[in-house]
């Protein structure tokens, strides 16, 4: 009875933490959007949709990762989050060369140097998740031996 109460307490705490993290992340996105990106939405079609899809999926992975913390799955979701950032950026920016046209004016922005840095950072995040997973299994094995 006490064990299930503790588990419920833990789960509630995790859910609360995940909710706060999600709200903070979404608030940061909203501030960024209102201050800087909203002015670009008129120029770039589907910008809001693209960014929001990214934010929503990222928050979902973050919340699920938070709820599953204390298990190996948290590290899987963290790794998935890092890979999702890389894939989504490459796909949404069409390999890094972003082009937009309006009447007979076309604008091409080369995001490849920026994507390279983002990919590198995400790979660091991915590596961190792998290390954490190994560490988690390692600690679990040690606990079982004891």
């Amino acid at each position: 009875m006490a064990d299930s109460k503790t588990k419920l307490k833990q789960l509630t705490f995790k859910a609360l933490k995940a909710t706060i993290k999600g709200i903070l992340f979404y608030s940061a996105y909203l501030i960024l959007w209102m201050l800087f990106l909203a002015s670009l939405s008129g120029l770039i079609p589907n910008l809001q949709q693209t960014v929001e899809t990214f934010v929503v999926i990222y928050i979902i992975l973050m919340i699920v990762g938070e709820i599953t913390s204390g298990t190996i799955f948290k590290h899987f979701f963290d790794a998935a989050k890092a890979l999702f950032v890389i894939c989504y950026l490459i796909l949404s920016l069409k390999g890094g060369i972003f082009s937009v046209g309006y009447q007979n004016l076309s604008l091409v922005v080369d995001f490849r140097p920026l994507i390279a840095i983002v990919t590198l950072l995400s790979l660091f995040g991915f590596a961190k998740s792998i290390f954490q997973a190994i560490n988690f299994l390692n600690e679990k094995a040690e606990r079982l031996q004891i």
Partner: protein
Amino acid sequence: MQIPIRIIGITTTFFWIFLIAFFVSAVYSVKDLHFDFGEPQMNVTADNRILFSLPLNITNKGFYSLRSFNLTTQILDAENFVVAKGTTYIPIINKDEAATVTHNVTIDLNALLQHDENFLFNDTELKIYETVGMVIADLIPIQASTNYSMPWGAPLYNFALGQPQYVAANSTHFLVRLPISFENHVFFDVSGNIKIKMYNNANLLLGEAQIFMDVPQQSSYNGFFEFYVSRSGTTDNGYFSVSILTPLFSYENLVVSYGG
């Protein structure tokens, strides 16, 4: 293992914050870039080419320097032949600095006429491609391009030689009066000499004449040549060879038949 994981975590978080701040400030900096285009001017160079000049002032009030600014203008005809091309390049404009340059495009009319003599006689359209490129914040290359059409007015539009009128000058020669007319549709005044040579149907030169013309832009020219030809060589038909010599262009291949 906890310590390396934490180091990776702290380092990546720091770089993420730095990267987001950098990207946001770079985008925000674009708002503080000002491009002021001056009044375009047209001049004739020392080597008799048409020079288009566009003064350009760039003010960089952003957070980062602007690198590799280049403005390219390409003028093409209907067959995508490059009539003229001009590029202006500024290696760097530091923050809180301004740069003033003149973007020049030179048109060599003789080269243009060598490619297609229709430019001399027929109005047409020229395609203009403008490309502006730069690297903002030392990291993000941007290129904007546009294209539009510009009408080309022919300097000798509707060029025509009338039928030669023969007036008996004496027992051996005729005085030939030959009307000439055209419209100057081009954006500059056409002044120079027109020379004609009259040949009979046996390719024998009968006579020649030269007149000076000074035709302002968007106006018509109506004149006539007067010259003497030998009665004996005159035939019912033949041809005129026309040469046009102006400081901006010269053309010597025009053959106009007369008679039957």
